[in-house]
């Protein structure tokens, strides 16, 4: 069942106010870190907790923080990645608009740990309301002395800037996000150097997801061991899952890592819409390979999903029922990735365009024999050949759709129409 840690007070409408947040034990962890701990101890505690990047990559946060070169004299920056744009994902929005101080506190502790005095929170342009809530929270934190100069009399200074984006999926990728903050087009950067060495303004920079940072205060309050006691051996703690698609109760649910997918879909999500059958599940945001109904008992953690041939990604579970044509889904997906490709790498820029042409021609009923093989060949030529993971993200759902539902694709080409009768997809 649900294990509410990050989302404990999410339903309290007053949680956005600093007084309510303080009455729930807010900013205690920041105070503890500032007054009782050294930055290295904070990093050690986060390493011990085993919390991994919740944006999708799943890289251990504490280890990432440790990558900042100790002898670099340049200023250091923390960037909180609130550019949640992966289709299906609606978890960071909830945290930012319902518990913004939790995010501010997590950012403050993390900034202290890495020795940063300026932290940015990058919120996507479409999130006008979450951005307002975060701005208000930052203002209140300044008023109460949790941000600014000489915080709580400890001599530590920290400023925080809320930065809104302009609507580009690619800006959720960390190096593109840094370019966007610098006022440039959001195009990804070659690595190395990694942002921890040369990031924002060529200074050491740590980019973490909203959910990762929001977990930090709990780790400091209760200890890394406490956090590590939840979840599985390698995937620790809890994670927010966004459930959407053809289920009765879509929404966001916080679960312990390793909870079976069936619990999320059937017990919490109330199962499929009446009279409909499960056809496929996208388990971690639209860029992850699909799962079939017989895999519904897979555990929701990084390792189990990788074993099942997919990814935990951002934890966005999209449930698809039998009325849905998979070619139709693929067409929309590739349209999205073609549009969002920044254009830097040829395989992604041109490849997604070719894929869109091929897939929409099949969807229109103009597909030709050999098109599927062409798509597969294109996918193989994009995968792993781009600077950032957008190319891979575009290809993975298409490849898995063809692998799992090849009969539907072939039917489309041979019969010039969908195999399934749907009220949503026409033809």
């Amino acid at each position: 069942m649900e294990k509410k840690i990050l989302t404990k007070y999410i339903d309290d409408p007053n949680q956005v106010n600093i007084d309510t947040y303080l009455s729930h034990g807010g900013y205690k962890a920041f105070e503890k870190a500032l007054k009782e701990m050294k930055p290295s101890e904070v990093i050690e505690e986060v390493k011990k907790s085993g919390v991994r990047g919740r944006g999708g990559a799943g890289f251990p946060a504490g280890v990432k923080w440790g990558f900042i070169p100790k002898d670099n004299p340049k200023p250091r920056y923390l960037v909180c990645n609130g550019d949640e744009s992966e289709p299906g994902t609606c978890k960071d929005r909830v945290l930012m608009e319902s518990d913004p101080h939790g995010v501010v506190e997590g950012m403050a502790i993390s900034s202290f740990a890495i020795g940063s005095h300026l932290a940015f929170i990058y919120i996507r342009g479409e999130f006008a309301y979450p951005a307002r809530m975060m701005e208000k929270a930052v203002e209140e934190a300044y008023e109460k002395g949790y941000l600014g100069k000489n915080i709580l009399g400890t001599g530590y200074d920290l400023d925080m800037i809320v930065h809104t984006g302009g609507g580009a999926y690619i800006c959720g990728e960390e190096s593109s996000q840094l370019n966007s903050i610098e006022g440039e087009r959001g195009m990804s950067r070659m690595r190395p150097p990694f942002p921890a060495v040369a990031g924002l303004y060529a200074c050491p920079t740590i980019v973490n997801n909203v959910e990762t940072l929001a977990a930090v205060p709990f780790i400091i309050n209760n200890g890394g061991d406490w956090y590590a006691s939840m979840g599985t051996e390698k995937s620790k703690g809890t994670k927010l899952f966004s459930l959407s698609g053809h289920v009765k109760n879509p929404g966001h649910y916080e679960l312990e890592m390793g909870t079976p997918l069936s619990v999320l879909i059937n017990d919490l999500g109330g199962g499929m819409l009446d009279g409909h059958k499960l056809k496929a599940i996208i388990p971690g945001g639209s860029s992850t390979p699909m799962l079939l109904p017989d895999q519904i008992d897979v555990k929701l953690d990084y390792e189990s999903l990788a074993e099942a041939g997919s990814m935990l990604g951002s934890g966005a579970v999209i449930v698809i029922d039998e009325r849905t044509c998979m070619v139709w889904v693929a067409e929309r997906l590739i349209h999205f990735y073609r549009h969002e490709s920044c254009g830097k790498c040829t395989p992604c820029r041109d490849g997604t365009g070719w894929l869109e042409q091929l897939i929409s021609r099949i969807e229109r009923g103009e597909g030709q024999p050999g098109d599927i093989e062409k798509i597969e060949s294109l996918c193989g030529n994009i995968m792993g050949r781009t600077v950032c993971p957008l190319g891979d993200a575009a290809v993975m759902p298409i490849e898995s759709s063809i692998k799992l539902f090849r009969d539907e694709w072939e039917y489309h080409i041979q019969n010039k129409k969908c195999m399934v009768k749907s009220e949503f997809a026409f033809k």
Partner: protein
Amino acid sequence: MIIDSNKIQKVIDDSPQDKKQLIMILQNIQLEFHYLPKESIGLVSEYLGMPQSTVYSAATFYKSFSLVPRGENIIKVCKGTACHIKGADLIIDQLYAGIGIKPGQTTKDMKYTIEVVNCVGACAMAPVMIVNDKYFGEVKCNRATKLVKKG
């Protein structure tokens, strides 16, 4: 549509003269005029001391910027994966029947513009339609036009 350059200049002058504020400044102009008037590219480039091409490239890279005039009311229909499989296309069809424009178009009286947007991060309430930043979740397609007219 003619926009007074002085008005644009005023918005620009209220912003910090800092190259890294480029996107913020463009956002402020768009907030005022619902789109980026042609003159704004040149004015911003002069103000920030950067080539027009750089300003133009940023303005065309980010999806939220429009270089053509948009209506008073902006209707966004989400077509992220979750909304797509829950019938976003039906909303678009209904809006076409009700207001007479397709995505990307603006009504002649400059009252409405319809845009298709990618995932807006509200997938649990799919399908989602946004009218002037007000979110409508689980939109029944036959009510779409009514929701728009009510605002």
